[in-house]
């Protein structure tokens, strides 16, 4: 942050001092991004960007007013705070109003912001260029996107809280296609700084999959034994997580509603001892250890800002353990206060196998690469529809024997938990569908004996 804008720490302190409300929360987010996008073995777009956002949440009695502005200069601060104070005075009392969490602190508050720059790709970009050349000479085309984001969040409250979190988020999507575009394979990795990304190795793995696809097998719609790799599982489990709001469940609107009233917390969803949980301190996918809420809604409350977050089981031993809560919804449902956390981990019983080992143990089935365009069809069963993408492989007698056409599926992830017959070894993975919003996942592959491929998709 430059001198004209002031430091984020100064902005928080000044905004809190300016507020005339009963209480106040100030959130400053300093963002920086760098990205490279490529198609057909060449760069297409690129860029670096900075952002700076101030959010002031004023609380008057039981009412809250929220004003959020970008690029606020010190001389504009008083106007933003006054607007939030005014909005709070004009607002109706909020049903989720609670005293702000008392003054804990987190992170190294005083340290300066360290933005990312295009230099984050200084080793990666040349390696990517070499992979372009290698792909070109081998008749492959590489497509994809590399992005690095650093967001530094500073949250301060009139109750003394000063919490700071620096979140690096990196992702690489790499898609290889044959020159005639008829064969396609995808891989993706999440990274904190691109130092651990081996683009040549990723490209080599894709080349192997394109070779698998040289033998084409057309299969009709139907139910198939299917191995869903970690990326596909992550997309389905993110859908489950996003549908796990306690408030909606309590109101009878979701798959986690109990018929006749209440929630399904405590109910067994799977005979396999599956664990689905979030943990802000999980190695490699660490995330903010406190609540940051810019507006209240069904799953978050501005009054919870700064609340400490710890490891939380959503499903434990195959049973529904917790739902996403605010302090308000926890009171309504009589359940624990378990706010949303920005990572997701799934594990099965000890000794889970790798995808390769699961393939080797398959007599006949399908191996997916990833899922795409996943949308909710029915909230009460969490029936989802979507497509397979970039490689559906037929496995016979423990080996991949060719590539199969794509399918549209109709399945519920909750139902799948009850039908899965194997949970593999968990590993960090990148969701294909949802990685714009959610990149921090550790997931296993799963085996489902009867995955519902509803219709054939002609897309390749």
């Amino acid at each position, binding site marked *: 942050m430059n001198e004209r804008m002031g430091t984020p720490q100064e902005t928080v302190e000044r905004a809190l001092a300016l507020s005339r409300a009963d209480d106040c929360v100030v959130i400053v987010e300093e963002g920086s991004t760098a*990205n490279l996008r490529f198609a057909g073995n060449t760069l297409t777009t690129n860029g670096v960007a900075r952002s700076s956002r101030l959010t002031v949440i004023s609380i008057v009695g039981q009412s809250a007013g929220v004003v959020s502005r970008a690029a606020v200069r010190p001389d504009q601060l008083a106007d933003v705070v006054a607007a939030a104070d005014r909005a709070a005075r004009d607002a109706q009392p909020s049903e989720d109003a609670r005293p702000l969490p008392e003054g804990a602190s987190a992170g190294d508050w005083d340290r300066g912001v360290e933005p990312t720059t295009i230099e984050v790709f200084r080793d990666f970009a040349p390696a990517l260029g070499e992979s372009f050349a290698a792909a070109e000479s081998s008749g492959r085309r590489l497509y994809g996107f590399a992005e690095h984001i650093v967001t530094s969040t500073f949250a301060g409250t009139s109750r003394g809280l000063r919490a700071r979190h620096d979140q690096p988020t990196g992702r690489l999507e790499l898609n290889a296609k044959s020159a005639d575009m008829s064969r396609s394979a995808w891989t993706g990795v999440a990274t904190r700084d691109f130092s651990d990304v081996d683009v040549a190795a990723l490209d080599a793995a894709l080349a192997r999959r394109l070779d698998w696809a040289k033998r084409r097998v057309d299969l009709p719609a139907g139910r198939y034994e299917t191995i869903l790799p970690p990326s596909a599982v992550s997309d389905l489990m993110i859908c489950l997580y996003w549908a796990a709001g306690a408030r909606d469940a309590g109101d009878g609107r979701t798959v986690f509603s109990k018929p006749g009233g209440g929630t399904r917390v405590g109910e067994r969803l799977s005979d396999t001892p599956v664990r689905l949980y979030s943990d802000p301190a999980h190695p490699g996918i660490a995330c903010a250890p406190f609540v940051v809420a810019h507006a209240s809604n069904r799953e978050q409350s501005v009054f919870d800002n700064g609340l400490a977050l710890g490891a939380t089981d959503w499903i434990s031993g195959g049973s529904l353990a917790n739902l996403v809560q605010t302090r308000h919804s926890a009171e309504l449902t009589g359940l624990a206060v378990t706010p949303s956390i920005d990572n997701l981990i799934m594990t099965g019983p000890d000794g889970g196998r790798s995808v390769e080992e699961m393939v080797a143990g398959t007599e006949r089935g399908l191996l997916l690469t990833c899922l795409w365009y996943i949308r909710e069809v029915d909230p009460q069963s969490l029936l989802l529809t979507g497509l397979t993408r970039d490689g559906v492989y037929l496995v016979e007698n423990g080996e991949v024997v060719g590539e199969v056409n794509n399918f549209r599926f109709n399945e519920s992830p909750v139902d799948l938990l009850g039908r899965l017959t194997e949970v593999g070894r968990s590993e960090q993975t990148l969701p294909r569908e949802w990685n714009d919003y959610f990149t921090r996942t550790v997931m296993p592959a799963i085996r489902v004996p009867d995955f519902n491929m509803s219709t054939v*998709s002609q*897309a390749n």
Partner: protein
Amino acid sequence: MRQIDPDFLALPLRRLADAALQRARDLGAEHAAFRLERVRSETLSLFDARLQGAMDADDLGFAVRVIKDGTWGFASGVELTPEAAVRAAEEAVRVAEVSAPINREPVELAPEPVHADVTWVSAYDVDPFDVPLRDKVELLAGWSSGLLGRVDHVSASLMQVKEQKFYADMAGTVTTQQRVRLHPELTAMRTDGDRFDDMRTLAPPVGRGFEYLTGTGWDFPAELAEIPDLLTEKLKAPSVEAGRYDLVIDPSNLWLTIHESIGHATELDRALGYEAAYAGTSFATFDRLGTLEYGSPVMNVVGDRTAEHGLATVGWDDEGVEGQSFDIVRDGVLVGYQLDRRMALLKGLGRSNGCAFADSPGHVPMQRMANVSLQPAEGGPSTEELISRIDRGIYIVGDKSWSIDMQRYNFQFTGQRFYKIENGRLAGQLRDVAYQATTTDFWRSMEAVGGPQTYVLGGAFNCGKGQPGQVAPVSHGTPSALLRGVRVLNTVQEGGK
């Protein structure tokens, strides 16, 4: 016509643009464009007539985009000073230089006449940001209260956006624009025994001001008055028998099918593979331009950025190209694509048709969707007349779930309401309906489109595309339409129940 807000014009627009463009020129850029944007939004949500959350936000910043030695470079900033604009220009050039070694395809742009110092403001009467939050909450709470008692719960939301853009490029084009859009929604919920369902208003998002909520362009009280009884009927409705049906699809549903299966499929950047790793490609490949039988002869589709109240309507796009109207499908045949300046030149199509858009100052302009609309038949039938032509079918109203594959072949849609058609008449609601088809099969099965009296402009605020992801507002006009023999699924059976 309204004027651009003085406080936006008071920003140092030209000073920053001059500084950035001069620096880019000095550093040898072949092309440079400067864009300064402020996007203000206010979102409020209510549940059971109580305010649940409200947020007043804005995004303000600028961007410099250059072409240096045939490679794009882009940088953005938030500090509105000439020094920061110069730094962004330098950074954009540096990004181009770093990227050049992995660029094998020199970037060139289709020519566009210079539009020197022009302004445009969208068609609206009342700036929603001039209306006190309290008044908006009272209006939505009143509507919600009117439903409670007849339904169990009501959620309501209102999204409002004011987008202000200043654009200047090295060729001399300077545009200043302001547009406003609103998206109100109310959803009623009810449980009957173990069965839960909901029903949402059909009112589309529009490029209008607050007058949209007070009687201009939509009759909210009339629509809301019908919802409790419609929802009650839906809860008691029989589950659909899966199979093939003749469909009459209401504009409130068909706009989304147009969006997914025509709008995205006819973006030239997709068709050429530039979105291959993310949004996907298109079955409507460039070699099929002029020959692909997209649909039946009654199918005529126009792309335009000029429709009054359209969400993708602008004066000039984010590459300084004038908003235009153009044919995409004529008499059932693919005849055009949506273009930006690079795509237009790449395929020798002459001038861009003005489809570049960036959703924020921090993002690169990319080819985004125009208002892509199915044309009604002059003197064509009413919706009732279309229904009267069907012996056994379903009339589908309102959008809900949607999904389509990465080449825009295979899609599946649900809706808000489904009516059984028997012998040319509606015979009560059905439940659990989804329709599933291949794009060209679907549009080729379209026997008739309704007349202008059935035409409605639908749309969405949140069309996603690109990496980094961007959202764009877009409208789609359509009449009602009659389609024969479309596959209908029972969604409960699909779930294995």
